[in-house]
């Protein structure tokens, strides 16, 4: 009797670790693939994988973060305004799926702001004012939700830079935001959550070199 309980127990543990390990393994393989994929086809394959994970794991926001990020990247593979918009709108809806799991997540809110910023760049002449409002709204909100999120500061910095260029003169606070982002990247403790986003340090540094050099 004792033995059979033990057997059942160990089977349960085996199952449990498989179930848990499955998420780690799948995410661990998919996240780098989002960044490394070089074509729309490859990227869609990774996004599909991640959305399967997202649908199975009802309590995880991370898969949606990467599907959203993936669609922002995807929009860059296309030329036409309609296609770009299609993927950027998908990016926003994926971020919102993630927000349905974790409402006040600064990373997801940053991505929404990022997607609006990219929609703005499609046609700054006519979209400028509407979309800059939308993008700033999300990015400011992302900073407020977590002032320690370097990506929120980095994206805000890019938005400020773009707006300042449009207005002519000044940097609109871009370099300050980028410096904050850089500082946060440098002093970031190793993350508790291995699947939380960690990108952005390199792009921040090169943005600082490009825009804030003396």
């Amino acid at each position, binding site marked *: 009797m004792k*033995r059979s309980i033990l057997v059942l127990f160990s089977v349960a543990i085996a199952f449990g670790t498989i179930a848990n390990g499955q998420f780690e393994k799948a995410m661990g393989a998919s996240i780098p693939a989002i960044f490394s994929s070089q074509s729309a086809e490859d990227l869609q394959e990774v996004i599909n994988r991640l*959305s399967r994970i997202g649908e199975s794991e009802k309590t995880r926001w991370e898969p949606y973060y990467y599907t959203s990020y993936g669609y922002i990247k995807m929009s860059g593979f296309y030329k036409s305004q309609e296609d770009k918009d299609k993927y950027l709108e998908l990016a926003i809806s994926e971020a919102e799926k993630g927000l349905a799991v974790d409402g006040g997540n600064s990373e997801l809110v940053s991505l929404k702001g990022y997607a609006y910023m990219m929609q703005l760049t499609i046609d700054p002449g006519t979209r400028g004012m509407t979309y800059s409002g939308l993008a700033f709204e999300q990015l400011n909100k992302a900073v407020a939700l977590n002032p320690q999120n370097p990506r929120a500061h980095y994206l805000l910095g890019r938005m400020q830079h773009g*707006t300042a260029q449009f207005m002519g003169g000044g940097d609109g606070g871009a370099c300050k935001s980028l410096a904050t982002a850089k500082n946060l990247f440098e002093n970031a403790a190793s993350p508790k959550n291995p699947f939380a986003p960690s990108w952005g340090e390199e792009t921040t540094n090169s943005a600082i070199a490009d825009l804030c050099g003396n």
Partner: protein
Amino acid sequence: MKNSFTLTCFLLSLMASAQFTISGTILDESGEPLLGVNVYVEGTYDGATSDLEGHFSFETAQTDDLVLIVSSIGFIKETIALTGSTDTIEVKLREEISQLNSVIITAGSFNASEENQREVLRPLDIATTAGATADIPGALNTLPGTQRVGETGRLFVRGGEGRETKTFIDGMLVHEEYSPTAPNTPSRSRFSPFMFKGASFSTGGYSAEFGQALSSALVLESKEAAESNRTDLSFMTVGADVSTTQTLPNGSVAAKVQYTNLTPYFEFIPQNLQWDTAPTSWDGNIAVRQKTGKTGLLKLYANLSTSSLAIREASISEPEILLPATVSNDYTYLNASYRTLLSDKWGIRTGTSFTTSSDFASLDKASRKQDLLGFHSKLVGDYQHSDRFALVVGGELMGRSIKQRLQEQETYHRKVDEYTGASFAELEFYFSKDIALKTGLRGEYNALNEEMSVDPRIAAAYKTGTHSQVSIAYGRFRQSASDEVIINAPSAEQEKATHYIANYQHVADGQTFRIEAYEKRYSDLAQFQDINNTASYQYRGDGHARGIELFWRDRKSIKNLDYWVSYSFLDTERTYRNYPGAYTPPFASSHNFSVVTKKFIDQLKSQVGVTYSFASARTYNDRNSERFLSGRTPAYHDLSFNISYLYSNQIIIHAMVNNALGINNVFGYEYASEPDTNGVFARRAITPPAKRFIFLGIFITLSKNKGINQLPNL
């Protein structure tokens, strides 16, 4: 212990060996392979993405109750239960019919929306059109289907009178939507374009949901809850305003107060009217938005205003005699609407609006006071069966009460109350993404003349290419006779119009081309010898309006330049009122043409706009001629400029000038009531009180959100 280890190993190997392979092909409806489709077992990570040939293959551990999901962007998701042995499967996905890929019924309508990229206009376009002075009807007057009637500023659509266009806010009717103005000065809509996130301007053949408009429906949709706080200040040559928006938990509240006084302006810009009191007004607006539950949204809106002006009006026969004239108006509009989803497929919308408008006008000792009370209540159910089939059903009640007091030598009191009940049903069906049909019925009962009616509306559209489509519409429309008629003859028959419209549209990459032809037949129009002689009333008047209209918009060819060109040809005649036969009415012009251009100039940090408008001659009744409506005005020309300069992120300076060339536009002639000693009726040209209208304003936004300024508001 050893046993248990063995057992575990056994179970694990069993699991491994239980893997089996699912493979197959994904095709679209026409049998072409689909790439990038996500195929997976529900609730698991097991799945694959289809390749260039539409093939997929993957292994899964799950064997029982296996549900396969096939999902791809732009296609309807398929769910397939797999039982027992499955070798290879073939799945055909049907393309989802969406706003982006399907045909849209465009006959007779122009839509402005921020959300749909394929719309012809954006709400911002309304605000930035030179010559439109940020006025919705002003901007819509640059579109085909409208005829310029410069002395009123109202929308005159396809040979219809101004009253044949009705305005709806969030589905609810607005009475007296124009602000009162001095004689022959274009009036403005009371509602600022910044309130709205979308507009649908129908020049004919519109939905069964709307009625009591013979020619046109302007359907405005107000903004949703604001997501950030802001305060705006504006200082203008004509007044000042302050507005603030504050977010609430799950909602927002916005308020605006505006004071307008043209006294200082008239000091600088000479007017050919003698003002006792330049137009002065106070306007207050409050808008509350509250989200309820997951899908509910309650909108409350109130607009209150009071305005007055006084002039000295010269007598036509003896211009040295100046008679005092005054105009004043108190106005309230309240609108409450609510919408929510009841289930996946059913949604409801409901709302109520109230309008009160109290007008007073006097000329010397004669005066006219009119009090209007209007209300409108509506309940609509929206049923979305699938992406192919949708049904709208609803009912509404409209009422208006008009009270007049006329004072000349004697005082007359007149009053009329009118109630109209209506119900409507409209179904929209997509045979495929290329063919759509919309068909509706509207039943109405008018308690005043006890008329019961059912009017059909039908529209269809067919996609002729990736970017092009044709669309047709037919409908019967009715509207109560004009206020002055029903107040004399409450049982007056309703006037009718039948519309036939055909439209071709090509929209691609920032370029839009539209051509539309229509025929509109009027019947049962009120006729009389003398409007005050009720015995002379008959309802047998009729008429037609037919025409061809062109629209071209290009945002692509020249960087940062956006322009559109509209042309309308109109042929119209009617027999109504006191017309002795079929004549072209004075508000109709055969040719209307507009070019609107907008360009952002980076170096100047400014958006500049130029609009040119042309309208051919209009008729007027020459009292010195035997023939009716024999006079012809000169053609109308207007060249207007505007510039918005971004002084800083949150300060904008806006300037504009209408009729920059100072062209002397004549809209018609007024005649003396009695002939002079030579038997000739003296006349006076109807002209604007000043040739040019010049506007200068500074708009300041106070917000933590640095991306917000008032440019979208200009």
